[in-house]
C-alpha cells in the first residue's frame, strides 16, 4: 500500500488507509448524489463559511476546506475528511451565507450518508453510544423521550434531571395537553402512524443504512418493525 500524502499511518489515524480506487469510488458516491450539484457551485475561497461556523472555532475544522476538496475532486482529501472532519460539523447551516450559494453543511450531510452506507470507521466511532437514540426515533417516531432523562445519562444537566426521573409518571400526568401523558415517547403516537413510519424506513432504504454501522441495532429494529407490520397484516 502506497503511503498517501494526506493519510496518516493506521495506528495513529485510527482508520485504515485504502487504495486510491476505493477513495475514488467513495467520492463518486458523494458526487453522484442528486443534491451535490445544488450544494456546490464554485468556491472563491472567501472564508465566509469558516467565519460563521461554530465548529471552526472549537475544532480544527473548515467548511471551506470541505468545499474546496469536493470542488477539486480530490478523492484523497475527501477520504481523509470523511474519516477525520465531517462529524465535527454541528449542522447549523450558518455556512449558507456563502455568496456563491454553496452549502458546505449539505456536502457534509452527503459525505456522512456515504460514510454510514460504507461503514467507515469515523461513522462507527461518531455513533458509538448513540444507538439508543436511533432506536428511539426509528421505532417510536419521537426522539429523546421523557424516560431517557436519567441522571446517569445527563449528569451535567443539573439536579433537575433527577427530580424529573423520580417524578416522571406523576409529572407527565400533570401536563394539560392530552397527547403528552406518555413516558416512553414524547407524545402519544397512533399505531397506524408508526406503521406508516416503518414502511417509510423500509421502502426508502433508510433502515438498511444502519446495518453498516451497528448490526445489532439493525437486527433489533428490523425485528420490531417486521413484527408490527405482520400484526397489521402488511407486507414489509
Amino acid at each position, binding site marked *: 500500500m502506497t503511503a498517501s500524502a494526506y493519510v496518516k499511518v493506521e495506528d495513529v489515524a485510527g482508520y485504515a488507509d485504502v487504495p486510491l480506487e476505493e477513495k475514488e469510488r467513495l467520492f463518486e458516491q458523494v458526487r453522484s448524489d442528486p443534491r451535490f450539484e445544488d450544494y456546490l457551485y464554485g468556491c472563491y475561497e472567501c472564508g465566509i463559511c*469558516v467565519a*460563521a461556523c461554530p465548529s*471552526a472555532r472549537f475544532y480544527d475544522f473548515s467548511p471551506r476546506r470541505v468545499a474546496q476538496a469536493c470542488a477539486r475532486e480530490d478523492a484523497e482529501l475527501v477520504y481523509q475528511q470523511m474519516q477525520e472532519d465531517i462529524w465535527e460539523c454541528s449542522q447549523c447551516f450558518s455556512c449558507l*451565507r456563502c*455568496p456563491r*450559494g454553496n452549502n458546505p453543511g449539505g456536502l457534509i450531510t452527503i459525505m456522512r450518508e456515504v460514510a454510514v452506507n460504507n461503514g467507515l470507521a469515523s461513522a462507527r466511532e461518531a455513533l458509538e453510544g448513540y444507538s439508543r437514540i436511533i432506536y428511539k426515533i426509528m421505532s417510536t417516531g419521537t426522539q429523546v423521550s421523557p424516560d431517557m432523562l436519567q441522571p446517569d445519562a445527563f449528569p451535567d444537566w443539573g439536579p433537575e434531571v433527577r427530580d424529573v426521573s423520580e417524578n416522571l409518571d406523576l409529572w407527565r400526568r400533570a401536563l394539560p395537553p392530552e397527547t403528552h401523558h406518555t413516558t416512553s415517547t414524547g407524545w402519544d403516537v397512533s399505531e397506524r402512524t408508526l406503521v406508516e413510519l416503518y414502511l417509510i424506513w423500509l421502502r426508502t432504504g433508510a433502515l438498511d443504512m444502519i446495518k453498516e454501522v451497528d448490526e445489532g441495532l439493525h437486527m433489533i429494529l428490523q425485528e420490531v418493525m417486521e413484527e408490527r407490520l405482520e400484526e397489521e397484516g402488511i407486507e414489509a
Partner: protein
Amino acid sequence: MSSSTIVVIGGGPAGLEAARGVAELGSRVVLVEKRDFLGGTPVAENYAGLTPHMEEAEPAMQRMAERVLSNPLAEVLLSHEVTSCEGEAGDFQLGVAGPDGERKIECGAVIVATGFQHFDPGRETQVYGYYEYPDVIALQDLEAMLKDGHVVRPSNGEAPERLCFIQCVGSRDRHIGNEYCSKVCCGVASKEAIEVRRHLPGCKVFIFYIDMRMYGYWESEIYWPAQEQHHVQYVKGIVTEVIQRGDKLLVRGEDTTMGRPMEIPMDIVVLSVGMEPSVGTRETAKLLGLRQNKYGFIEAASPPLDTVSTSREGILACGAALGPADLEDTISSAGAAAMKAVVLVRAEEPALAG
C-alpha cells in the same frame, strides 16, 4: 423627416464626454439631465479624488461641463426627463418634460448615458449593520468625508484609529443576484485607503477581500503604493458579520491565509458597495424599449467589438448604464458612442456634414 440632431440622456461623465464629442465633431446635440446640475454621480455623491491619480472630482467634472456649455452646438436641458420616444433611427421624436413644460425634440440618434447607483447595503447577504450602526459607512460616504476634509467616526465625531474596508459588498453574490464583479471597488477602496492614511497617519487601515482586482497600471499605481508606502494591510478573507461590542465594531471573518477565524475591533467599517443600474437607466431602457441584461443594465448588442450599440438601431449607450465601468472605460465608450451617433446622422443627411 430625418434629423441630424443627437440627444444625449444623462449629464454625468459619460454624457458630458459624449455631448462634447458630438458637438466638437460638428453636430448639434441636446443634453437632457434629470438633476439641476451636471457632473453626475461624482458630484451628486461628493467624490473626493478620482481613481487612480486622485485628481479632485468636482473641478474635473466642472471642466467637462464647461466644454459642453460653452459649445454653441450644444443645448443643455437641466431638470428635464425623457417621457416618450417615437420613430426610428435617423428620425426620432423624443418627448421631454421640465419645469417649463413639455416639448418634443426631433433627433437622428440617441445616446443613453444614465449611469449607475451604488448598491444599497440593506440588501446584503452578510450582516454588516449599515442601517444599525452609524460607524458602518459605504465607499461614497467616505468620499464625502474625504472631500470635506474630516474623516471621523459618525458616532462620536472622533478620528478613527482603526478603519477597514470590506470588499465585494453587493457584488459576486448569488443570493442577491448580482453575480458580476463591479470592477472598480478594489481600486477605489485602495485609493481611499491611501487618502485615509495620508489624512490620518495614526490610523491603521485594513482591506478584507476575496480577490484583489486592480488591472493594468492600477496594480503599480495604487496596489503597490498602498502596501509599500502607506502600509495598508490587505487580508485575504472577507467578513461575514459586523456587530457592536462596547464602543467598537467587531468585524468577523476568516483569515484564510492563516486558516483560522478572526474577530477584530474597528472604529469605522467601510463597505465597498458595487454598482447597479440607476433608476434612470432602468426607466430609460423601458421607455426606449432597449433590451436589458438580467441585472437590469442596458445590454450592449455585440461586445467585445461593439460596446455601445443597443438592441434598438439608432440608440447607443455608454458608461455605467451598460455595466460596471471605471472612468477610463466610461470616457472611452462615450467617445465611441459619439462617433457612431455622428456617423449615423451624417449617413442620413450627407448634405449637412461638416
